[in-house]
């Protein structure tokens, strides 16, 4: 999928391009045929059936080494590259997004830039290829893009990340702590201290270090957003370590909202259900789960990162000014949060 000429792309073309690469999703083509674009707008008209909007399982068996690349997934996830249309909801805001190279972080980065924000993204050096695409997309939206690769398990790097973002962006008023580590282990007996520690460092310590470093720069009106999960409420048996970090995220959002509300800073969380991201195909889900990913959701398919972009915008924008200490979900019908 090419990411050029985004804003003039219609939703219909976007779905057609996506569908052309996905032989297993014939329903997609009929959905796209029904979604006639209005002239000069990428917004679809008429009703779109959420069951048929995106590819459904079964998917091709695929595994990548951690952390995995969105650009090598089949089908490629949709982060809103061709569909997200902004309307100035985040004009001149300054955002830092961890894990901004792929998945929900990438969807948020694209949406934020098209809503008028300058965006710094963090990612692992191994994810440079995905990150380059995001940097290009932010620039194509006419906004400043800052790329800061590095491993969030290191406290010194987290402090440097915030300092670099503040310096390059000329301030900071949105912090999206989104990067996550997830490795499926069917038994606690096979879970090493090293893996447990890496999961805690990435998912719990890094947000602590980053928010602590960012807070002195955040003026009233700023927003902090954490990516939690349906796993916070209904953990899978093979995600013992990951799921508890997502419960911790859900909880820190509520604690910090109480701490920072009196300072005019809002803190909220986003809880995805099964979403088609590199996290899943690089050890986050078993081989058998990948091929049927999202099948048990009442919508019968996994979510796509693009389907959460609007939530990240909503929680950051001024129109959402009374929303703090809350968790917004996109769960595909599985019930949480």
């Amino acid at each position, binding site marked *: 999928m090419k990411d050029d000429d985004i804003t003039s792309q219609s939703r219909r073309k976007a779905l057609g391009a996506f569908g052309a690469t996905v032989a297993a999703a014939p329903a997609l083509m009929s959905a796209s045929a029904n979604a006639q674009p209005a002239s000069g707008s990428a917004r679809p008209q008429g009703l779109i059936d959420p069951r048929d909007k995106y590819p459904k399982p*079964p998917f091709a068996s695929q595994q990548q080494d951690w952390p995995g690349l969105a650009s090598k997934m089949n089908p490629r996830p949709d982060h809103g590259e061709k569909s997200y249309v902004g309307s100035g909801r985040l004009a001149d805001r300054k955002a830092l997004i961890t894990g901004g190279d792929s998945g929900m972080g990438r969807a948020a980065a694209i949406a934020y830039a098209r809503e008028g924000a300058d965006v710094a993204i963090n990612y692992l050096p191994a994810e440079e290829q995905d990150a380059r695409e995001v940097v290009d997309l932010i620039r194509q939206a006419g906004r400043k893009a800052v790329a800061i690769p590095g491993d969030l398990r290191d406290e010194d790097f987290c402090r440097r990340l915030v300092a670099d973002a503040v310096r390059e962006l000329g301030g900071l008023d949105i912090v999206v702590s989104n990067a996550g580590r997830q490795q499926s282990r069917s038994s606690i007996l096979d879970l090493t201290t*090293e893996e447990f520690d890496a999961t805690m460092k990435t998912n719990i310590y890094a947000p602590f270090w980053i928010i602590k470093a960012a807070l002195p720069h955040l003026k009233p009106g700023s927003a902090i957003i954490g990516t939690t999960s349906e796993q916070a409420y209904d953990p899978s048996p093979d995600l013992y370590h990951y799921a508890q970090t997502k419960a911790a995220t859900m909880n820190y959002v509520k604690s910090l909202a109480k701490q920072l509300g009196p300072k005019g800073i809002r803190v909220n969380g986003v809880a995805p259900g099964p979403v088609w991201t590199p996290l899943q*195909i690089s*050890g986050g889900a*078993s081989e058998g789960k*990948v091929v*049927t990913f999202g*099948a*048990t959701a009442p919508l*019968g398919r996994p979510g796509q990162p693009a389907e959460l972009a609007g939530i990240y915008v909503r929680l950051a924008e001024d129109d959402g000014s009374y929303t703090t200490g809350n968790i917004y979900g996109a769960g595909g019908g599985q019930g949480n949060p």
Partner: protein
Amino acid sequence: MPTEGPKMPKPQEFADSVAQSDGYELAAAQTALAQSRNPQVRAFAERMVADHEQMDQALRDATRASGLVPPRPQVGGDQSSFLAALQSLRGDEFDREYGRQQMLAHTSALTVVRSYAEKGSDANLRSMAASSAPIIERHLQAARQLQQSMT
């Protein structure tokens, strides 16, 4: 780091996952026999009961031969939401959902056993996986036909 990335299941993990797959197939088939009047669905369900009881026996034999704990055919994680969805439907809706689930569950099971037959570490389980694969493949084809007969 050696712990990172996708891992091949250990022998007991693989055995447990096959047992969960058998457990779901048996429970779903018994639900179908109780709730469906569609003769094709009932015939498919009867075949699942017979074949998965045999496959479960082969699994127990292979685990014993390798000194592992023979797992019980229990419905696990994801399969339990499949089963809950199935148990709440009636009539044509039940039959369509049963067909959809069977296609998906057998796609998943086939991926898992083929991969273990090729790369698994335990010889008895590898051989069990290799002889299960063609049976599951036939089930997958039958599930697809069942799905098509109901559209």
